[in-house]
């Protein structure tokens, strides 16, 4: 006997057991109706739970996206300061965050389709239940207990299959929601702790190594890209400097000459303050801070 036939027999056996328990078969109808009403409420709650999970996943995706772009900014900054080690560690975190993101995207799509299916299913159950209520009242009004038995058996075998189906659908939805909530809770904690670089928890060694290799190649390619961006940025600056006209060039040369003179007259000035003095001469002089004060400050 095929699988599908066996499953239907299991359902039928359940229906018969439920019918045997009742003394007056008409009670079975009321009982089944009540049960199915409760089930419908639970299915609707299931739809709401799935929607909540979907929103939570969406929120986490946004958080991780923000985190990723923040980490990329940090890496760019670190690289421009010549701190490749810092840039590398930021990009490693970014790579870990990205791997979380693809898992969440999958979940999001799955939840959307679950929500749609459950909503449709709840509508179907509602329609069936309305039809069942009408039939149940007709049977109760027209037939005595003895006469009603065969009619009730027919209606009951149908509604009982519906009840078994809906019961399983509810169970599946609840199990899935509980699982997702646990995962989402864990990820929330992870996001809060900021430890997105430590995600290779429960995986086998080979997978961990593969992940590490792909993560490090991600990091390398990110580093190359950022270096490229920086280099082209500098090239543009140089270009605009060269095209800036001779007047500007002369002005700059005059400024540098002056600063060199200053350095010559103040040989005791520590080297790190020389570089600090460069931008000061370019800054607009504000009214409340006399230039001499600034220069005294840097010189002392």
């Amino acid at each position, binding site marked *: 006997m*095929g*699988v*599908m*036939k*066996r*499953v*239907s027999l*299991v*359902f*039928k*056996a*359940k*229906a018969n*057991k*439920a019918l045997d328990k009742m003394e007056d078969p008409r009670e079975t109808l009321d009982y089944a109706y009540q049960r199915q009403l409760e089930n419908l409420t639970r299915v609707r709650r299931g739809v709401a739970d799935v929607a909540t999970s979907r929103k939570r996943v969406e929120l986490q995706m946004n958080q991780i996206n923000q985190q990723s772009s923040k980490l990329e900014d940090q890496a760019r900054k670190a690289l421009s300061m010549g701190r490749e080690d810092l840039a590398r560690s930021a990009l490693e975190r970014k790579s870990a965050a990205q791997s979380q993101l693809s898992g969440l995207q999958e979940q999001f799509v799955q939840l959307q389709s679950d929500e749609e*299916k459950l909503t449709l*299913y709840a509508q*179907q159950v509602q*329609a*069936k239940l*309305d*039809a*069942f209520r009408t*039939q149940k009242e007709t049977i109760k009004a027209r037939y005595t207990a003895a006469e009603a038995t065969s009619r009730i058996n*027919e*209606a009951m*075998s*149908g*509604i*009982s*299959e519906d*009840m*078994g*189906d809906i*019961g*399983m*659908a509810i*169970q*599946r939805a609840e199990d899935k929601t509980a699982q997702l909530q646990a995962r989402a809770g864990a990820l929330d904690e992870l996001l809060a702790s900021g430890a997105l670089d430590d995600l290779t928890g429960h995986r086998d060694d080979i997978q961990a190594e593969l992940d590490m290799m792909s993560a490090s190649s991600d990091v390398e390619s990110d580093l190359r890209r950022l270096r490229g961006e920086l280099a082209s940025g500098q090239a543009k600056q140089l270009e605009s400097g060269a095209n800036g006209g001779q007047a500007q060039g002369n002005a700059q040369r005059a400024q540098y000459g002056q600063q060199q003179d200053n350095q010559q007259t103040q040989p005791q000035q520590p080297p790190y303050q020389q570089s600090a003095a460069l931008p000061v001469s370019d800054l607009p002089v504000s009214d409340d801070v006399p230039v001499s004060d600034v220069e005294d400050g840097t010189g002392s």
Partner: protein
Amino acid sequence: MIVRILGEGQFKMDDEASAVLDKLDSELEAAIDHGDEPAFSAALSTLLAHVREHGEPVSAEHLGPSELILPHEGSSIDEVRKMLADEGLITG
């Protein structure tokens, strides 16, 4: 013949479409017997697609049992085995 897909509802199928179900069902059964999860999920997907494509959704007014019942989309072998063993999965 009326066929139910768990979690989706009942479908009415003509004899021609029902005949194909038998062949697909034996593939499903073989996959369960061998514990072959990929073969199982492929056979189940094909079965479900066939019923959805060739079956006519049964109206809400119809209150009757189904001759054949198909597991939920995405079911695992383990779930189906439990269902067949009737380990309290089906609420009565």
